[in-house]
């Protein structure tokens, strides 16, 4: 009840603020279905955003109206009716459960297999936890440590309030609001996300994880993240969590922008485990993400590592624009598709500066009826003297109803650049399976062992604890794929 009242009040105050007013009647904690300028204004107003940001959102919205949903990828899905979704709802406090007994046993068994400690299981499943274990207190100490170093790590909305000049300077400079259908939609209606700024000369002493960000819940389906590493700085950022995530929103269209100045480095790691739909292909999240980093400064570096096991459809290409001379871009990816999952993922390495280098290691695993596509672009611009790229794309098939596809695009506009591309496709052979089983491993552990071996080059790029969890996750994602 209190939520309703609060929302009504906010809406009312916003209505009064904008002279054009609202043409839509809003009466509950959810704005009505559909998307129009009033909804964009409502989102912005609710967050008390400055005018420039609202204007930016509106420009994006108007652009989006003129755009068409792209259809060049390998993925297939029924047409999304954008007017049939809610774009704003007041954050609802999660219903707290009293004990783990109330949690779905299937979820608990996954937690157990992942080796998640009991207290942590409770937190993930939304069971009320002891204050001692509440991650909020951990997060607070964590924040104090960071602020001593001048590091800003907060929610995007908080940054808009507290550091508007930084947000304004960098937002949309890597992914312009006109970029693509989903990024443009995100620019218009993004809900919240993370903001990180590392000041010059600072090496962030710990992995920054969304997990520790206060108010990490309710960031919703249109997340927006902006990370800036100023001169001579370093940060490693972790997104996501190996525990399975359910979400009632089918469409997720996040945007992540990274910027490195001279000699700075950002390492961005993702484990994506959204609900993939059931064994028959029903339900599941559509994960249409735009992630891009700009190595603006000389000698700067951006490294993307991703482990994609969830979602019904994954469509993302974390990319690097290598502007600064000697800058380095890396992309390490594991994508698993089981049952009816589809993934179309890869990267773009745009070499603009001199002596820029990029490495792409992509491991696609398909099981069941899963479809896995690597799509990558390597472009050597006319000024990218001595640019280098090495690409390796390996596909592993489990069973014979799945598919793997590799679509490399290479554009070289100068003579001194070198681009190397290697690709392999292999199957887990019956002989390998039998060998492992003869040594005492059951089918699932055997597949898991072989798959982890296949992905080793990528997994070793993940921060240590994350890597251990990711290994287990790979096994779990492939359960039921053999035998």
């Amino acid at each position, binding site marked *: 009840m209190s939520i309703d009242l609060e929302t009504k009040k906010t809406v009312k105050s916003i209505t009064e603020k904008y002279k054009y007013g609202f043409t839509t009647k809003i009466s509950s904690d959810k704005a009505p279905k559909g998307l129009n300028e009033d909804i964009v204004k409502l989102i912005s107003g609710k967050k008390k955003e400055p005018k420039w940001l609202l204007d930016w959102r509106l420009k994006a919205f108007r652009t989006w109206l003129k755009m068409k949903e792209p259809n060049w990828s390998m993925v297939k899905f029924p047409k999304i009716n954008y007017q049939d979704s809610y774009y704003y709802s007041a954050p609802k406090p999660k219903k707290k459960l009293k004990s783990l007994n109330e949690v779905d046993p299937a979820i608990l068994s996954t937690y157990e297999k992942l080796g998640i400690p009991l207290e942590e299981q409770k937190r993930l499943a939304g069971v009320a936890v002891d204050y001692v274990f509440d991650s909020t207190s951990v997060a607070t100490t964590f924040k104090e440590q960071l602020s001593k170093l001048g590091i800003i790590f907060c929610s995007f909305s908080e940054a808009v309030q507290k550091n508007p000049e930084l947000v304004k300077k960098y937002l949309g400079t890597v992914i312009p609001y006109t970029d693509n259908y989903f990024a443009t939609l995100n620019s218009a209606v993004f809900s919240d996300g993370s903001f990180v700024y590392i000041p010059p000369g600072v090496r962030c002493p710990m992995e920054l994880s969304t997990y520790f960000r206060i108010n990490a819940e309710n960031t919703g389906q249109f997340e927006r993240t902006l990370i800036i590493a100023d001169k001579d700085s370093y940060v490693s950022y972790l997104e996501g969590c190996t525990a399975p995530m359910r979400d009632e929103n089918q469409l997720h269209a996040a945007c992540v922008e990274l910027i490195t100045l001279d000699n700075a480095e950002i390492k961005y790691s993702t484990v994506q485990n959204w609900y993939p739909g059931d064994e028959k292909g029903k339900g599941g999240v559509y994960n249409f993400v735009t992630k891009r980093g700009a190595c603006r400064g000389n000698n700067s570096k951006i490294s993307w590592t991703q482990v994609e096991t969830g979602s019904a459809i994954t469509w993302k290409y974390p990319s690097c624009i290598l502007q600064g001379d000697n800058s380095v871009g890396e992309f390490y990816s594991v994508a698993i598709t089981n049952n009816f999952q589809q993934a179309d993922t890869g990267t773009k390495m745009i070499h603009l500066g001199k002596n820029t280098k990029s490495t792409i290691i992509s491991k696609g695993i398909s099981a069941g009826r899963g479809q896995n596509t690597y799509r990558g672009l390597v472009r050597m611009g006319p000024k990218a003297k001595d640019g280098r790229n090495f690409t390796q794309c390996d596909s592993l098939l489990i069973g014979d109803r799945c598919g793997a596809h590799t679509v490399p695009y290479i554009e070289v506009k100068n003579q001194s650049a070198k681009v190397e591309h290697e690709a392999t496709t292999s199957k887990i*052979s*019956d*002989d*390998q399976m*039998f*060998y*492992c*089983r*003869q*040594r*005492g*491993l*059951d*089918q699932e*552990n055997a597949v898991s*062992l*072989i798959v*982890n*071996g*296949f*992905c*080793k080059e990528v997994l070793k790029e993940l921060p240590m604890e994350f890597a251990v969890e990711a290994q287990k996750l790979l096994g779990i994602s492939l359960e039921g794929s053999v035998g």
Partner: protein
Amino acid sequence: MLKIEGLHVNVEDKKIIQGLDLQIAPGEVHAIMGPNGSGKSTLANVLSGKDGYDVTKGKITFLKKNLFDLEPENRAGEGLFLAFQYPVEIPGVSGMNFLRTTINSIRRYRKQKELDGVNFLKVLREKAKFIKMDEKLIKRSVNTGFSGGEKKRSEILQMSLLEPKLAILDETDSGLDIDALKTVANGVNNLKNKERSFLIITHYQRLLNYIVPDKVHVLSKGKIVKSGDKNLAIELEKKGYEGIM
């Protein structure tokens, strides 16, 4: 230990094993010799539970259990080990990781405590030293790019780590140089005890100089056509299969 009665096996409708009987008591070493294609590997694969073999008749009891009721991994857990004639490569999976995963999986099955990193390394080093296997090899991907002899040595290392009750060695001596042959034989002899049995498939009497068998069987066209003691192998070496049949 092992009792095979009237075993008949088809592969893709082709009769490979046709009425085989064999009994191995605890602590015994049996050798099987026989011409190429006589069904030796087929027997080893059927015992260890590989797919694709159609058992049309017969019974196999292993440690009083019906072998056909057990999945391959459970047979391994019960103590059946097969050193493969052609060990398969598993790229990306380091030997260390493989050995530790398998040994602990089997220990779990046997309700023994799993080995932690330190204890595992201790055991591994000791066994590797005994069969003169270079630790560098263990750090590489399982069997990947190994020479023929290195693969065989790695099978023996795994055998000694997994402490089977019945170890089947399918031509482990083929392709070994004379020194390697001695170390492999040493590895086997070292494992020999009152409870542990061996079924050794070989083409050469030479190996049996080092591992002395209690019984030698000659397999031909899917049947045991002759059994005897170690002297049968010597006779066979002199006269050939034609000569003794």
